């Protein structure tokens, strides 16, 4: 449990944290905590009743995020955060549902759900902490691990080309796509806020340090050293062509907002379609309830 100094007021984020679970499990200089700070700030700005926001995580170090945020929150199975969130959202369209999870969880084992949710434009916001590694299980190669980087399952260097996540998201139809590092706290917070406000499938990639496994195994120092590296190597390229956003080992990281476009969400498309088919016989799904609540 957190021991507090006397007469220090409450940390403003505590309102949205499960303080009875702090300290969290993340290692010193891990970047996940910073991503959570930004997320809490974004939620704070977000003009949606907080009780109507739900957070869903899969399994992983990042997957523990749902366990620390004081909103309705679900820690599901590895790779299935997105379909769980899909159910949560579709069954109660009043909710704003955020998936907060790791690169392995969302893009490796969960890759199929990721591409299909983007395709359908399921109305959820996906925040992916990309630490280039499967951290929770001890540092195995992820589908984001840069070429040549070391991991416990690429002890001689990674020979598999990683995904460019903004490209993947955008090719599949995401309506909002951004990438920041965990150093870009303000811009990251803004992007999270924009994503929350965007109807449809929005995606925010957060490049963040895994100090214990990725950094140590690749002799990159601590999380602070990685932040310094991000400082020196990231380049803001709003609107960049998604095909140009690959990340090579310890090389430039292009960040920015890449995609912001309009497409009907899954529920909107359903409603439009049924309305056309059935006319007044059809009660638009989700809408009535919202009215009732109002």
């Amino acid at each position, binding site marked *: 449990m957190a021991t507090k100094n006397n007469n220090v007021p409450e940390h403003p984020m505590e309102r949205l944290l499960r303080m009875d679970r702090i300290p969290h*499990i*993340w*290692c*010193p200089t891990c970047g996940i905590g910073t991503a959570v700070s930004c997320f809490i700030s974004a939620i704070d700005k977000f003009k949606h009743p907080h009780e109507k926001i739900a957070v869903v995580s899969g399994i992983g*170090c990042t997957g523990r995020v749902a366990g620390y945020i004081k909103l309705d929150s679900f820690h599901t199975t590895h790779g299935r955060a997105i379909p769980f969130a899909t159910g949560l959202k579709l069954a109660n369209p009043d909710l704003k549902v955020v998936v907060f999870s790791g690169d392995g969880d969302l893009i490796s084992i969960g890759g199929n759900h990721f591409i299909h949710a983007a395709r359908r434009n399921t109305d959820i916001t996906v925040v992916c902490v990309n630490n280039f590694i499967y951290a929770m299980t001890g540092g195995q190669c992820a589908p984001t691990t840069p070429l040549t980087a070391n991991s416990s399952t690429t002890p001689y260097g990674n020979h598999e080309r990683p995904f460019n996540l903004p490209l993947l998201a955008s090719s599949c139809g995401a309506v909002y796509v951004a990438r920041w590092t965990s150093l870009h706290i303000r811009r990251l917070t803004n992007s999270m806020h924009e994503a929350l406000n965007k109807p449809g499938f929005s995606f925010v990639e957060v490049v963040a340090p895994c100090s*214990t496994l990725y950094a140590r195994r690749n002799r990159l120092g601590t999380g602070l050293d990685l932040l310094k590296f991000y400082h020196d190597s990231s380049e803001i390229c709003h609107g960049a062509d998604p095909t140009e956003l690959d990340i090579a080992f310890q090389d430039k990281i292009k960040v920015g907002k890449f995609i912001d476009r309009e497409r009907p969400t899954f529920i909107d498309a359903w409603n439009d379609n049924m309305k056309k088919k059935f006319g007044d016989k059809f009660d638009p799904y989700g809408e009535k309830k919202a009215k009732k609540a109002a």
Partner: protein
Amino acid sequence: MSRTEIRVTGYGGQGVILCGYLIGKSAAIHGGMHATLNQSFGPEARGSACSAQVIVSDEKILYPYMRKPDVMIAMSREAYNKFAPELGGKGIMLVDEDLVKEAKAEKNMKLYKIPATRIAEDLGRRIVLNIVMLGFFTAITKLIDHDAVRKTVETSVPKGTEQLNLKAFDSGYEFGIKQLESESKPKKKSTKKKKEVAA
């Protein structure tokens, strides 16, 4: 000899697990004994005290976990605070005297201190602290034959680091022998046949 349970503990990066591994391996491979090593895993262990448990016995080890340590090696204050109570005031406690300043002996618990980090730093690599501790452990407990442990160190460390590590082992061992000599007689709780043979 019946079962001796050893806990090695400290913080991540100190080579805690390796130290436990070398104890177990010395006993099992070059010491002619049985030795089972366990470690704590899990997310809750991230960034906090880490620890290895070694059970050494000259009979087959059946129950695989430690029940109550007979010997403890503590290399950090946090680890000491967390695990020392396990000894319940009995057995042997080995600490790095600079890192675990608060350590003190109790009724049936014998405390041995060594400035292992400093010795390691003097050898030029702070990282061999765990091997210094291993030497110290070997000398104090006499649980495992000195030559067995030394051979294990020699054959287990990365190529090119053998000399450094052996020096670290020897320093720790000698420091321990001297400390024992400076005592009237070792009066460890769990003195057993094998140890006497080794002595």
